């Protein structure tokens, strides 16, 4: 309790200092300009595009400005399944990334604390995949999971995979790809909080006769919460809009299309810009709502 009280007080001091300084406002200017130019403007353009209607008798891909809100009804009716699938896959991927990322972060941030060299090395190992393009790594998994590849062969031999079944192109391979690609985004924020965790608090918990599980639940986990929250957000948000893993050219098939895949097809192939824009806005709105509920539920607004 004392800990939270202290941090809250510190924050207050910070804020009042910020308000008084004109330099801070001046320094904000580039950021604000950037947001207006590259966020607000495209957003307005996106909303307007989502309300366009086809020019009657016009060319393929020819649209004009209107207030055609039916675009939203159309995309929800047509692509509801793919949207639901996207959020389902993203939630699963976040969960698996958390299950793998948390122990990893705990190991690096706490267990390896006494061996700085090993700790640095382990961190490099987590970050190392970033040195290779994410597209290449995903393509590599496609090769590993290929029908004639080693994994499918083994799965076949032990009866996990029936004849004629395959690993790629299934929900499994897409969720696997998402999880794999986002593990570093989950691990690093959790590591950052655990690395600063004051071990004396854990010790104090033990001194007060709490068993290790209780200490973990009541001390370590709440203190790691900011990392877990930002890790989940960093994973869930981009994973919901991902169109690479689920793409037919990577780990997906015609049965795994996510909302990103649908937006891509509408934009690049069907030239249906209003539908693509409406879907993007739906995606944004749903993420916003889900994230708001999540943050509210975890009761950690002040930690963000």
């Amino acid at each position, binding site marked *: 309790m004392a800990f939270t009280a202290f941090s809250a007080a510190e924050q207050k001091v910070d804020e009042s200092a910020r308000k008084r300084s004109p330099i801070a406002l001046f320094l904000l200017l580039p950021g604000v300009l950037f947001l207006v130019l590259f966020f607000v403007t495209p957003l*307005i353009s996106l909303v307007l595009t989502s309300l366009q209607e086809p020019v009657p*008798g016009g060319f393929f891909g020819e649209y004009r400005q209107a207030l055609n809100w039916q675009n939203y009804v159309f995309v929800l009716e047509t692509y509801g399944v793919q949207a639901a699938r996207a959020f389902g896959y993203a939630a699963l991927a976040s969960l698996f990334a958390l299950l793998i990322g948390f122990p990893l972060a705990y190991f690096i941030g706490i267990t390896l604390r006494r061996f700085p060299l090993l700790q640095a090395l382990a961190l490099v190992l987590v970050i190392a995949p970033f040195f290779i393009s994410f597209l290449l790594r995903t393509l590599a998994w496609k090769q590993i999971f290929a029908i*004639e590849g080693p994994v499918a062969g083994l799965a076949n031999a032990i009866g996990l995979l029936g004849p004629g079944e395959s690993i*790629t192109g299934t929900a499994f391979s897409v969720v696997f790809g998402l999880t794999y690609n986002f593990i570093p985004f989950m691990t690093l924020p959790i590591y950052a909080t655990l690395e600063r965790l004051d071990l004396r608090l854990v010790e104090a918990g033990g001194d007060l006769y709490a068993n290790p599980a209780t200490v973990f639940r009541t001390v370590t986990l709440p203190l790691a919460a900011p990392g877990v929250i930002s890790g989940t957000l960093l994973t869930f948000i981009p994973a919901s809009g991902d169109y690479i893993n689920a793409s037919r050219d990577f780990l997906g098939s*015609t049965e795994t299309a996510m909302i990103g895949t649908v937006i891509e097809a509408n934009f*690049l192939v069907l030239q249906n810009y209003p539908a693509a824009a409406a879907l993007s806005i739906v995606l944004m709105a749903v993420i916003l709502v889900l994230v708001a509920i999540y943050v509210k539920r975890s009761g950690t607004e002040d930690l963000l």
Partner: protein
Amino acid sequence: MNRPLPEDPMVRRLIAQAKRAQLSRRTMLAGTGAGATALALAACSTGGGAVEAAEDISESDPTINWANWPFYIDEDEEGGYPTLEAFQEQTGITVNYNITVDDNNSYYATVRDQLALGQDIGADTVCLTDWMVARWIQLGYTQELNKDNIPNAANLSPDLQNPEFDPGRRFSLPWQGGFAGIAWNTEQVGELRSVDDLWSSELTGRVGVLSEMRDTIGLIMLNNGVDISGDFSADEFNAALDIFREQVTGGQIRNVRGNAYTEDLVNEDTLAAIAWSGDITLLNFEAGYEKWKFAIPEAGGTLWADNFLVPIGSPRKANVEQLINYYYEPEVAAEVAAWVNYITPVEGAREAMEAIDPELAENQLIFPNEETLANTAIFRGLTAQEENEFQAAFQSVLLGA
């Protein structure tokens, strides 16, 4: 205002230009809110009128930016392009050869806004497939070629001189052509003769097809006995689409992909596929032996060509005309064809090829004879409405339910 436009492409183009002239500045401004400043500038630069061809500065600027597909020009071991280097030496024109076209649709999607404003898209010439070229010509996004500068255009193969989308070849000239047919892994599968053979139970889950609608659906339609060059109906298209959907949802077709379908053949995820002719030759070359075989199905294969065109905003048309003229020399065309293994549109290239490699001169995939060509068909041009309907139906299968 809401009357449907006449079907005639020329009339449609004129109407579209007229409409653009009235609307461009106002709608552009209204349409984009805060981003309007940039667009307003762009709109001013075109004078707010119909899109007109850029002024030619070829004389003072001897360069060409050429956008093309991967593996589509002769290469040497150092990654240079021998025929292109010879052209640069001959003419003093610098050619920037950019491999930026990966897919007709996505290339179009990246440049269409600039085209609509008549701006330079960074390419003075680009090679696109017939149906996409048809769209560009219809929308007035291409410049008329001056044939006086391209005397070698007379070498164009007679059957390619009057395509429905560009009678008399005023706006486009073919670069290379090819077939879509069926290909299979000879080590694992016996000979395939028709598209029906792809649906055999032995191949369940091991068949790949192309995401290019005109090739995949075109082959199925041909198999159904439909003439894809003729005036087929939406019902005939939908009948083929139903077969396609059934094979996808039933798991017979493993994947629907673009040019990357070759990867699936190589790692043996797919044992048979709907494929493009030149790719299979290249795969066999890489494997070192004839592991895959390509055949035009008995019911017929599709024939397509990629064409040179000059985008409306390019100020270097005369240079491009020199380039096209050069590639229409039979000897040069033969040199390119020997490497890329696609059909060359240039008459006389076959005779020139006999000097380079007599065996290749007999290759039906590079120099198809009458008999081979009789068994192929070009997918007819679609109206905007058909394009919308057919593409949406095709994509709905690819995106699943």
